[in-house]
């Protein structure tokens, strides 16, 4: 293990976790968090906002100056990642910045450094240094962390780019992006700016990014979605059909091609956008996710473009990645009626438990969210309406979205973060200064990828009218139930703890590369249940919208409480199996320590 910190051993971790989430499921796992509301009989899940109680005080400022700059309603994202390797998830929240008023050639206003808004890092105090469990509490460690992110922040991507066991972060901005190397040590969370050295400081308006090993060389690469060529100099005053000033849409500006940076080691990256074949496709990227959609052993890239056909970059598998856009042929570029949708956030995961990664993405109000079901070879069928996911989304504009098994029944549920981009009449009439607020949505998977809208019963925070954007998912209190971090545009961040009461069992995995160096992003784990069902989940931090999630994999096992067999398909090839893994705890699985499986099971 190439670790710099004394880590909580797997056994110890299991004790900690079991203590918090044993059979006593009705007892809340943290004394700080209480939800006295009795569970409704029809309640399938419950999410409770505890941000204020646990010290996660953060309010996003979009800097709006009254000029309706296009960037204002777009950001920002959030990350749920264990930065200090102490066994619990820390938080990074991306901040906006003040904007110039009225003058077309004004630069961003110069702020004294201490006054400038900046993205913030919060350390989770749940697990103590000695491995014992404390209470869920966050401490703002931005100042001591050295992370000085004072650009107009958009998103965050996470992954251990230097293979030193610490998860680094890439911050996308309206302006130059930043790569922050995680140099945390026993004294706390620390970051070092390696943007210049790495050559990844793309100055265009970047949105979501993905960290993944695209060329299979063991080093994590970067795919960065870029949006449009808006700048303050070319700011346009867009208008409603009646002529009232309104936010512009992406058609008002030229789209930008995305960027691909290959990791060459030593914290140096090479921009291979041209060679990889993506440079000739300018569009309006907002979301990106990497997954092996055609199960050929190479990570493919799916990009959600705003009002343009989406990309499915199939990895051709050469040493230097070459990619081919197969979205249109695969049936995943446009909706079934042939129309490009305003795709924002997206997720890839096995929604129908058939062993491959499906795609779900969010769209504008009056359009529906879209579910593309994968046929196993990256051929998709638009199942938005047959799945029950389409109709409830017509009234909202979706951004962040995560797959989360809320009640650990083995079926992935979906949460979407919503907030309009065009003025909502009734809110404007009532004098709202920012009339874009909408409720979020929770969809419960009733099995087989059929969904029902359970927002109203899942917790009051989700129906609160806010302008929501980013969503990250992860088990924040290590109780075996996935929680959610929600970022709001020009509003407070919400920490939505999963307080679903259920008797279902679970299994947590941390999939690591050989030697336990880092999270094996892109690895696909399959759990074989006693009723012959197979559940497949992918280790990833990407997806959603502008956000980065917990790379650990959490399986809801339903009623299955027996030790299970797990098969892992590692990125770059190789399948291994582990048997007899006990439910109710996390396990670390390192590549090379399992039993090799000759033929990959699909």
């Amino acid at each position, binding site marked *: 293990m190439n670790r710099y910190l004394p880590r909580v051993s797997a056994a110890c971790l299991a004790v900690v976790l079991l203590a918090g989430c044993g059979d006593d499921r009705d007892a809340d796992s943290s004394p700080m968090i209480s939800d006295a509301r009795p569970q409704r009989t029809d309640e399938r899940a419950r999410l409770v906002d505890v941000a204020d109680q646990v010290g996660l005080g953060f309010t996003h400022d979009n800097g709006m100056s009254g000029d309706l700059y296009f960037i204002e309603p777009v950001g920002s994202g959030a990350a749920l990642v264990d930065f200090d390797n102490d066994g619990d998830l820390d938080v990074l929240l991306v901040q906006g910045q003040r904007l110039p008023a009225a003058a077309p050639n004004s630069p961003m206003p110069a702020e004294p450094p201490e006054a400038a808004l900046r993205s913030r890092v919060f350390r989770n105090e749940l697990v103590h240094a000695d491995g014992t469990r404390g209470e869920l509490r966050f401490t703002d460690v931005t100042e001591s962390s050295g992370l000085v992110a004072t650009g107009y922040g958009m998103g965050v991507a996470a992954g251990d780019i230097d293979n030193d066991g610490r998860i680094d972060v890439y911050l996308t901005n309206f302006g130059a992006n930043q790569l922050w190397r995680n140099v945390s040590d026993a004294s706390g969370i620390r970051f070092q700016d390696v943007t210049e050295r790495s050559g990844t400081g793309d100055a265009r308006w970047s949105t979501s990014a993905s960290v993944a090993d695209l060329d299979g060389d063991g080093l994590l690469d970067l795919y960065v979605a870029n949006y449009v060529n808006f700048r303050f100099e*070319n700011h346009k005053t867009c208008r409603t059909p009646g002529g009232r000033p309104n936010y512009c849409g992406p058609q008002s500006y030229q789209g930008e091609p995305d960027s691909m940076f290959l990791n060459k080691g030593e914290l140096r990256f090479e921009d291979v956008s*041209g060679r990889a074949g993506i440079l000739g496709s300018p569009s309006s990227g907002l979301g990106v996710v990497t997954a092996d959609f055609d199960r050929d052993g190479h990570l493919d890239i799916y990009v959600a473009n705003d009002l343009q056909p989406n990309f499915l970059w199939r990895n051709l598998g050469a040493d230097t990645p070459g990619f081919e856009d197969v979205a249109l*042929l695969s049936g995943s570029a446009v909706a*079934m*009626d042939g*129309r490009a949708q305003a795709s924002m956030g997206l997720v890839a995961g096995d929604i129908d438990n058939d062993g491959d990664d499906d795609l779900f993405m969010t769209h504008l109000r009056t359009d529906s969210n879209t579910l593309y079901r994968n046929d196993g070879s990256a*051929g998709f069928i638009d199942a938005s309406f*047959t799945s029950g996911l389409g109709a*409830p989304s017509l*009234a909202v504009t979706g951004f962040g979205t995560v797959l989360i098994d809320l009640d650990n029944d083995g079926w992935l549920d979906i949460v979407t973060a919503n907030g309009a981009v065009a003025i909502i009449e009734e809110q404007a009439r009532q004098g709202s200064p920012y009339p874009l607020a909408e409720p979020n949505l929770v969809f419960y998977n009733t099995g087989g990828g059929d969904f029902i809208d359970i927002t109203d019963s899942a917790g009051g925070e989700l129906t609160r009218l806010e302008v929501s954007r980013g969503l990250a998912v992860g088990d924040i209190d290590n109780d075996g139930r996935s929680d959610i971090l929600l970022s709001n545009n020009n509003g407070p961040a919400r920490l939505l703890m999963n307080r679903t009461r259920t008797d279902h069992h679970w299994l947590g995995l941390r999939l690591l590369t050989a030697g336990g160096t880092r999270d094996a992003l892109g690895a696909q784990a399959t759990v074989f249940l006693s009723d012959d069902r197979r559940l497949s989940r992918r280790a990833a931090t990407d997806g959603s919208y502008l956000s980065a999630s917990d790379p650990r994999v959490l399986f809801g096992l339903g009623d299955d409480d027996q030790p299970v067999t797990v098969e892992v398909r590692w990125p770059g090839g190789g399948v291994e199996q582990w048997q007899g893994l006990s439910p109710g705890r996390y396990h670390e699985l390192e590549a090379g320590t399992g039993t090799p499986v000759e033929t990959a099971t699909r």
Partner: protein
Amino acid sequence: MVCLVAILLLAGCGEAVDPGPEPRRPPGFDQLEPAVQEQFVELLDRLARARADAAPAPEMGRAWGELGKWFDVYRFPDSAMHCYRQAARLDANEPRWSYYLGLLAVNDGDLDLAVAAFETAERLAPESIAAPMQLAELKLKRGQATEAGEHYRRVLDTEPGNLAASLGLARLHLQNHEADLALELLKPHLGDEARVPAELRYLAAQAHRLRGDAELARRQLDLLPEDHGDRTPLGVQDPWRNELMAIKVNSNHLTRLGIRASRQGNFRLAARYSGRAAALNPDNAELRTNYAASLLALGRAGDALEQVDKALAQDPNLARAYLVKGGVRLRLGDRLGAREAFLGALALDGGLKDARRHLGRIYQQMGETELAIDQYAELRKRYREAHQARFWHAALLASLGRFDQAMAALDADLEVHPQSPLLRLLRVRILATASGKSSSGPVEAAALFAGLAPYEHDVYSIESAAMVAAALGYHADAVELQRRAIAVLETLPEGEPARIARRRLVLYSEQKACHTPWQRGELLITKPVDAPIGTQEWMESPH
């Protein structure tokens, strides 16, 4: 006493009409365009008169309905729904009010209300296919495939061969993985190649894919127009909706119509729309600039200049107006005036790509090569996809004899655009002609050229081939290739490229090679030549 009379009168006239609550002004009314405001005031007056005159219910309903349409098209959906509800109540035999209410209810996510509204519209207008089409789409959205299918079939019963309904049914079949049934529905509409809508082609492609025939799927997709994703789905086109949209007088709408007309090459219609938008909003400099651009496209440069000057008087900071003015000046042959205008545009917005491109070209024409290089360098820095600018940047550096700089820039550019024939051929030229330091240059150039096969059959390629042949000592081949290039260049109005080509021919005839890969004043001519370049001896075994 008065009350009693009123009561008696009302009793005598039948049931009293509840005119509904007072309509409200929309939020931000003062910010609406003048023409839109006027339209609202007229509609409000009409309703007020109906209320004051205690007009019959249908008339009052129509007044509410017309006001609802105003709210609807200018995106005040809450108010529009309120108006349509009143209209449907009072003008109960008119199907459109329920129909419009249903459309808004779908957007609002209130699908129960939408179903009820469309069913009312269908009952009131059984001969119309609009409501059943919407009901079909709505049932599809609700995942009620069987019912959706029934509605589509009802449309087909009324209007056999209705394309939108056929497509709807095909979508249902595709969702059920019934590709053969989907294709059966689509095939009758796939006959006329030129008129096939993009949506139909896309669905046919998906049906072929699901049947496992990727080749046929690709063939359909290859025929999709470039902007296929922008098309409005056929399912939502209907006469009632068109009637609704027809009341729009806002500049956005007119501008959109103008842009559409312009894209279709109908500049006269484009000028009419943009002119109307400008006339309705005479203080709006952006709309006036659009009008000027349309006039310029129509060839009316003088009128365009008048409009753009007015726009600049209204808003001296409008960069796009300077851009259009530059275009007008160019059309008028006033290169200096154009240069000033483009510089003005860039001073306000350094990212105006077209202004910079024009400026680079103007500097080239004026012989200000260094300044042209600056513009192309800026384009190269700002826009990675700008491979034309990259070409000119390197070509002009080469024309000044700065070969090392040109090669360094080209090497970087080829990293970004490795397949660009423009850049690769320029590299071939520099290696062939300007590599005095290295005797292997021409051989390397020949190998690179051979790697470009199959060659583009154009003047630029064939002149490049001639340069390589001459550099390798194959002067006869060079002469032959150069003559073929000249034959095309002599048909062009520009004389300089032909003159440069003839000078090169003289060199090759004298058994000499070129020493300048690109000359000042040379143009990039990609006009096809008479026949393919073909494989030549110097390509296969250069020495």
